[in-house]
């Protein structure tokens, strides 16, 4: 054997063997010895190494039919009796005297298979527990609305019946009670839609994001007009996504930009996009593009950079309710939606200098279909 081939043979991590058609092993490499614990001297016939005799027969039939076998899956036995999961790739060759010889490479995939099975189990368990959690959140928030509705309704009734009879303080207490119940109602309502955005199956279609942004703007026209905001929508891509969730995403981002506007300045919001390839390099739209990076930029009050991550956490707020009303769910929902689409969302900002939300979304959802 040529020295270079010898080095390949000896240095291979996979087991390599040469055998006769009848199963006698002629030569094995060191990896073979390491994986199976045999040397050529104490190896019997190839078929004796098989855990399942019928696999050997299938292998034999396949190689006799076509002269080659690729990634034949079977289990082989170590000398100590333990079972290894293996992939055999082999070719048959006719020797000068007309007899058959096989040469093959055996890859030991036992660890891989075990890791994979472990991973599958963990993933399945995680999925289950996520689904249960979401179901729980949905049920809990639905059942929580029920008593709350009663507090509000009977509070209303009480206020109506005692109108004019309560002193200012008592009337104020009652008002606060009903208002608190109302706030909690909003909180639960938002929690419900967050949980729905997380647990409802995604219905993917081809979504024109500029149309989505225009729709959202139409929905928000009251607040846009009221704040004299200028919202500019650049050219946005079409992507494969859940249209309802995309609308929610843009709705939350634009509403957020308008809400945290700077005092005495009319808000300006721009939405634009660029395309990235799979290495996050900016590219022109076309076959190389696999991601869209969408920026929603405002000239609002901004935020301390140290809070850039925190604002996406559920119920996290940077302002008191007396400054800005809210439940701390909107941006959490944005992250949830983007994550479900296999994308990312981050925020950049400085106090008094506006904020930019950067959403990166895959143009197609192949990763979902593959999963």
């Amino acid at each position, binding site marked *: 054997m040529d020295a270079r081939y010898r080095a390949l043979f000896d240095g291979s991590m996979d087991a390599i063997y040469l055998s006769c058609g009848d199963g006698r092993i002629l030569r094995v490499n060191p990896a073979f010895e390491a994986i199976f614990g045999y040397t050529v001297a104490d190896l019997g016939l190839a078929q004796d190494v098989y855990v399942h005799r019928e696999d050997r027969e299938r292998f034999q039939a396949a190689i006799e039919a076509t002269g080659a076998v690729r990634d034949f899956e079977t289990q082989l036995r170590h000398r100590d009796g333990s079972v290894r999961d293996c992939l055999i790739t082999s070719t048959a060759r006719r020797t000068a005297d007309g007899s058959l010889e096989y040469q093959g490479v055996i890859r030991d995939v036992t660890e891989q298979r075990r890791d994979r099975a472990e991973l599958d189990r963990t993933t399945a368990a995680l999925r289950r527990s996520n689904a249960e959690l979401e179901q729980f959140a949905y049920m809990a928030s639905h059942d929580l609305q029920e008593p709350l509705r009663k507090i509000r*309704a009977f509070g*209303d009734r009480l206020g109506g019946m005692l109108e004019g009879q309560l002193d200012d303080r008592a009337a104020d207490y009652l008002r606060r009670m009903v208002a608190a119940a109302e706030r909690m109602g909003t909180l639960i309502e938002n929690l419900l839609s967050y949980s729905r955005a997380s647990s409802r199956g995604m219905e993917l279609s081809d979504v024109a994001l500029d149309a989505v942004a225009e729709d959202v703007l139409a929905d928000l026209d009251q607040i846009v007009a009221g704040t004299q905001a200028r919202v500019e929508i650049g050219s946005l891509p079409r992507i494969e996504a859940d249209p309802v969730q995309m609308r929610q995403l843009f709705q939350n981002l634009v509403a957020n930009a308008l809400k945290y506007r700077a005092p005495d300045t009319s808000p300006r919001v721009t939405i634009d996009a660029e395309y990235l390839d799979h290495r996050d390099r900016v590219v022109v739209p076309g076959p190389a593009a696999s991601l869209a990076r969408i920026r929603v930029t405002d000239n609002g009050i901004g935020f301390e950079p140290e809070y850039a991550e925190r604002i996406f956490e559920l119920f996290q707020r940077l302002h008191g309710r007396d400054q800005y009303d809210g439940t701390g769910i909107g941006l959490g929902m944005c992250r949830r939606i983007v994550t479900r689409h296999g994308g990312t969302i981050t925020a950049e900002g400085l106090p008094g200098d506006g904020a930019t939300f950067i959403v990166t979304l895959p143009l197609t959802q192949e990763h979902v279909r593959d999963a």
Partner: protein
Amino acid sequence: MFAMPDPAASPVPVLIADDDEEDRMLARDALVESRLANPLFFVHDGVELLDFLHRRGQFQDPSTSPRPGIILLDINMPRMTGLEALREIKRDPSLRRIPVVILTTSRADEDIIRSYDLGVNSFISKPVTFDGLVDVMRLLGTYWFEIVDLAPGSR
């Protein structure tokens, strides 16, 4: 000379199926507040609702279990849910002409679609405020007892 039927003289009975005592209280109060003079009857779940309509068990007396002109139906109830009762009512030739209005806390699309598939006449999400409930009762009264012609024999 013969008397013209005067709807105001014998207002059609309203039957409410709701398992929640407080919701029944609120519904009664809202009906009073909305000045609807219709006699009001309550049942607590789907089984009782069908017993009432078929005058079975405790509901045999026609004076306390009259045929309702309209049914307001909650969805989540023990023993037999509103949707199951709705299916029975709309399947039954003797009952299917009675308008059924679902009045529920649910806003789930599945419930709405399911209800209309089963032949519900309206689906209403329970308003959160009492004033909202009074409005709903008033509008229901105007619509079903003044605008709409109910099937003969409903009174």
